[in-house]
């Protein structure tokens, strides 16, 4: 199957600075690709290249079998975007902004009304004919998301889409993203919020020195960190070792890494209960994704699975 987004050997320089260097990327329809990287790593530049706002110095970009740099309006009508700046006409209300965008996208008024009714019914964004310039930062971001998901795009480019969102808005954002994926859309989410990336994305790439290093998500899942709050007893250590636990240490509970957690965790729990240990808490340790990313930011390879 042809990938929805396909870039190969992509390079882009600004003056003497090479921002993107021989980068290749492939995102299939119905999947979400997470893009992370330090400030200035080139995430926004990469999105602009994929959207055809910038022209690559070298390499090929194909999105939905179109070349974005050709600026074909039909191509853009299949795209949903949240870009670096929200880009609203401040003198207009959120609804008016969305209506103009819908008109540009060729989305009929009826479809827009249905979309707003289904996904944004009761939202404060549309209450009281408030002009966008009077909205808070978080509300403007919600408005940007509302605009991006108008119509049924086949590909989404979301640059920092979860910034400043409150809990309800964040849940709503996740709902929109998941609905789009279920529909078969391909999404690229660029974010510094690693929780968002970890939670939503099927694949994650780290942009560093203009190059994209993809994290092996399967490998990462196989090497998750776990915490069990139980007795400090040699029996626990034995159970963990037998189940394949590695890097086992006791520090206010047992910390270890584990492959194939879906199978092994129930086995460990069963064995500990059988050994008469009092189980107080079992959880996957948070931050393993974040620490893997930080390791890559620092230029080191993540630890290999045991």
């Amino acid at each position, binding site marked *: 199957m042809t990938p929805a987004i396909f870039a190969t050997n992509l390079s882009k320089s600004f003056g003497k600075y090479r921002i993107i260097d021989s980068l290749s990327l492939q995102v299939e329809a119905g999947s979400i690709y997470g893009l992370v990287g330090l400030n200035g790593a080139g995430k926004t530049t990469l999105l*602009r290249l994929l*959207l055809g*706002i*910038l*022209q690559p110095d070298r390499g090929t970009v194909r999105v939905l079998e179109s070349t974005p740099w050709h*600026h074909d*309006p*039909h191509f*853009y*009508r299949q*795209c949903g*975007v949240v*870009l*670096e*700046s*929200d*880009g*609203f*006409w401040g*003198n*207009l209300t959120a609804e*008016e902004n969305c209506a*103009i*965008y819908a*008109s*540009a*996208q*060729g989305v009929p008024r009826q479809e827009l009304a249905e979309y707003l009714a289904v996904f944004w019914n009761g939202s404060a964004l549309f209450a009281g004919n408030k*002009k966008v310039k009077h909205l808070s930062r978080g509300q403007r971001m919600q408005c940007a998301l509302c*605009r991006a998901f108008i119509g049924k795009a086949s590909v989404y480019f979301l640059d920092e889409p979860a910034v400043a969102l409150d809990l309800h808005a964040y849940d709503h954002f996740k709902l929109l993203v998941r609905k789009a994926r279920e529909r078969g859309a391909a999404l690229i989410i660029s974010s510094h919020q690693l929780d968002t990336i970890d939670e939503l994305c099927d694949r994650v790439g780290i942009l560093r020195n203009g190059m994209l290093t993809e994290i092996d998500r399967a490998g990462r899942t196989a090497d998750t960190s776990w915490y069990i709050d139980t007795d400090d007893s040699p029996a626990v250590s034995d159970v963990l070792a037998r189940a394949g636990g590695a890097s086992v240490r006791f520090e206010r509970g047992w910390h270890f890494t584990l492959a194939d957690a879906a199978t092994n965790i129930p086995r460990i729990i069963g064995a500990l209960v059988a050994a008469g240990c009092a189980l107080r808490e079992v959880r996957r340790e948070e931050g393993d994704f974040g620490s893997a990313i930080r390791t890559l930011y620092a230029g080191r390879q993540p630890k290999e699975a045991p």
Partner: protein
Amino acid sequence: MSGILTILRKEWRCFIGSDRGIFIIYAVLIVSWSLMLAAPSNTTVQAGPLWLVFFSVVISANFSNTVFIAERVNGILEILLTSGLSRRDILYGKMLFVFGMSVGIGLFCAAVTPLWRLALYKEAASTLTGETLLLYCAAVFMNTACSAYLSVRMGNPRLLHLANLLLLGLLVTLHFVVSYYFTVPPFILPLALLFIGALATAAARRLYESEKILQPVVL
């Protein structure tokens, strides 16, 4: 064509939604301009080419600021470019709006002028002719096209109105000098303005297709 209409509708809504102060400025401009146009030809103010082109710069600069410059500065243009409208429609829609509004205000001034003449000078005839109106329209077109081009080309787009004024001043002065020595048909100056406007439109069209449209803006 529907893309151009979308842009026109958008620009009109944005204009209508502007702060009240903008409308007060336009009202003051219209009153003062029409009063000056109403002055008898033997007074200090005349509806000559220099004055006409100066007014065209003042009027179209106001619209160019929001339509061409502000949208680049606050990132709206980037959203517009990815919205599903062709870049040609975006450019022509914006130009048409600036041109239409500037000409509309100019014509409104011209329509009000005879009333002032009648009220203040007890004269019914207007000094405005078809030629002067043509010159005004041609100057507005050139301003609009040059604004579209220079708003992308210049690192500091606020200077574009100064550039427009200099260019127009140069052309009108040249026209005066040549007219002093030779007989120049009255349509030559408007024709020259239209020609330069057409060149600037073509250049703006090229820029809108390039990535220069996103080059950083210095204000």
